[in-house]
C-alpha cells in the first residue's frame, strides 16, 4: 500500500513547527501504524533526513505512550484502539494521512509528535494513592467487595494515562483522566480513607496544570482507547462538590448551645 503522510515536524519546544509531506510506498496491510512509522524513519535516515520523533513503548495497547492525532482523531479512526494497535489495513491504499501531536497548553510539544505529559504524573502524585501500612500483609481477600463495584472500579482503572481525552477535548480538559483516577480508588473500600481529600487534591492539581473545564461534550469518551465512560466525570463532580460544600471542615470542633 502507498500513503501520503503529512507529519508535524518541530525541532523543540521553543521553535515553531509545521506539517511536512512524505510519501511511503510498499507498505504491507498487516503492518501496524507504528511499524509504518518505523519504515518511514529508516528510509528517512538512509536519505540523511532527521527521522520523525514519536513516543511508543509497549506496542500492545497498555502503556499509553503512542500519542498521535491521526486525521484529527487521537489514536486514529478505529474506536477503542491505541495508535500502536492500529493497522494499515484500516486505511485505503493511496490515503493521505495527517499526523499531529496532542494539542493542549498543559502538554507542550517537545519534538515532532512527542509531548510532555508530566502534568498527568503530577495529578497522580497529588492524590492518586492509597495509604498502605508497613506491617505484615493482610490476606488479600479479607475485605469483601461487591463484584459490580469491583468491575466498575476496574473500568476506571483501565485508563492507561495516554492523554487522548485531553487531545480530543476542544476545551483542553483533563476531566476524563482525572475522574478515572479519582474513581478507581474512590470506589473501592481501600480508597475510602482519602476519598474526599483525594478528589480535592487531584482536581486542584488538574487546574494548576492549566487544563480546561468540562463542557460535557463527551469527545473524550469517543477518543478514549479504553472507552472509559463520562459517568466517572459525573461521579468526580459529585464527590468534589460534596467535599467542597457539605463535608464538615472540623468534625471534632466544639459547639455551644444558645
Amino acid at each position, binding site marked *: 500500500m502507498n500513503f501520503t503522510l503529512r507529519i508535524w515536524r518541530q525541532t523543540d519546544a521553543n521553535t515553531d513547527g509545521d506539517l511536512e509531506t512524505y510519501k511511503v510506498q510498499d507498505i504491507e496491510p498487516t503492518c501496524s501504524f507504528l511499524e509504518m512509522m518505523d519504515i518511514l524513519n529508516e528510509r528517512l535516515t538512509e536519505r540523511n533526513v532527521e527521522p520523525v520523533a514519536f513516543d511508543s513503548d509497549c506496542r500492545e495497547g497498555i502503556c499509553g505512550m503512542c500519542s498521535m492525532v491521526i486525521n484529527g482523531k487521537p489514536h486514529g479512526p478505529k474506536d477503542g484502539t491505541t495508535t500502536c494497535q492500529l493497522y494499515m489495513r484500516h486505511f485505503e491504499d493511496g490515503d493521505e494521512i495527517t499526523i499531529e501531536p496532542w494539542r493542549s497548553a498543559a502538554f507542550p510539544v517537545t519534538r515532532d509528535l512527542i509531548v510532555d505529559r508530566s502534568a498527568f504524573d503530577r495529578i497522580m502524585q497529588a492524590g492518586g494513592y492509597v495509604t498502605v501500612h508497613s506491617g505484615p500483609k493482610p490476606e488479600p481477600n479479607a475485605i469483601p467487595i461487591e463484584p459490580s463495584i469491583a468491575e466498575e472500579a476496574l473500568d476506571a482503572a483501565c485508563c492507561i494515562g495516554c492523554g487522548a481525552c485531553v487531545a480530543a477535548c476542544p476545551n483542553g480538559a483533563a476531566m476524563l483522566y482525572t475522574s478515572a483516577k479519582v474513581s478507581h480508588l474512590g470506589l473501592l473500600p481501600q480508597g475510602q480513607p482519602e476519598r474526599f481529600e483525594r478528589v480535592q487534591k487531584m482536581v486542584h492539581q488538574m487546574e494548576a496544570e492549566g487544563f480546561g473545564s468540562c463542557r460535557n*461534550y463527551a469527545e473524550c469518551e*469517543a477518543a478514549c482507547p479504553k472507552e472509559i465512560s463520562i459517568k466517572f466525570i459525573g*461521579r468526580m463532580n459529585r464527590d*468534589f462538590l460534596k467535599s467542597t460544600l457539605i463535608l464538615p471542615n472540623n468534625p471534632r470542633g466544639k459547639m455551644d448551645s444558645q
Partner: protein
Amino acid sequence: MSRLGNLYQSVIGKKAIVAVTGSIMIGFLLLHGWGNLKVFSGATAAGVPEVDVYADFLRTMGVPILPYGSALWIIRIVVLVSLILHVICVVQLARHNRKARPVHYKHARNFEEATLPARAMIYTGSIVVLFLGFHLAQFTVGGVGSAPFVQGDVYGNLYGAFQHPVYVALYVGVMAVIGIHLYHGAWSLFQTLGWDNPDRNKSLRMLSVALGVGIFLAFSAIPISFFSGEMNKPSLQHADTSSRSNK
C-alpha cells in the same frame, strides 16, 4: 462563605454555579410560560382578560405581608442575579478553556459526540441575553415596538405587538434558540452536578428534549395565535375596567 469562595475558585465549582443558576432560570421560564398561557383562558365575567388578572396577581401577591409589588421584585432580582452569575461564570470558563487549548489541529475536526447545540451554547445564550433586553423594553417598560403600550393591559399589548409579522418571527425564532440552549443545558446540568448515571441517562436526555420542545411550543403559541387572528380583539371596554388601577 469560604466554601462558596472555594467553589467559585474551581472550574468544577464554577460550572456547578452555571448549572444551579441555569436551573433557577429554567424554573422561572416554566412559571413564566405557565402564566403566559393564560392569554388562552379568556376573560372574567367583568370582561378583564385572565392574563391581565394574572399580571395584577404578580404584583399583589404577598400583600399585605409584603408591600405591593415587592414579591415580584424579589423574583426579578433572583432571576437577574442568576443570569449575571451564569454569564460571568460561562465567560470566565470559556476564556480559561481557550488558554487551555491555544493551538488547533490542522486536520479538520469531526465531532463524534458533541452536538451542535452543545457547541453553540455561548451563541444561543448570547442571543437570549440580547433578546431579553428588547423583550423587557417592549412589554415590561414599554415604549419599544410600534403598538401603543398601556401598562397593565397585557392582553392588549400582546395583541398590538403581534399583529406585526416581524415581532412574531423574532419571538418564535428566539424561543427556538432557547429550546436549543436547553436541549443541551437541561441534560448538562445533571451531569455537571453529578446526578446523571447510566441508569438515568436516557430519561434525563429525553426530559431535556421535552423541556426544550415544550418551552418552544408553549411560548411560540402566543405570538402565532395573535397573528393568525385566532384571538379576540381586546375590547375597548376592558381597557377601562382592567385591574391596572394601581398603576
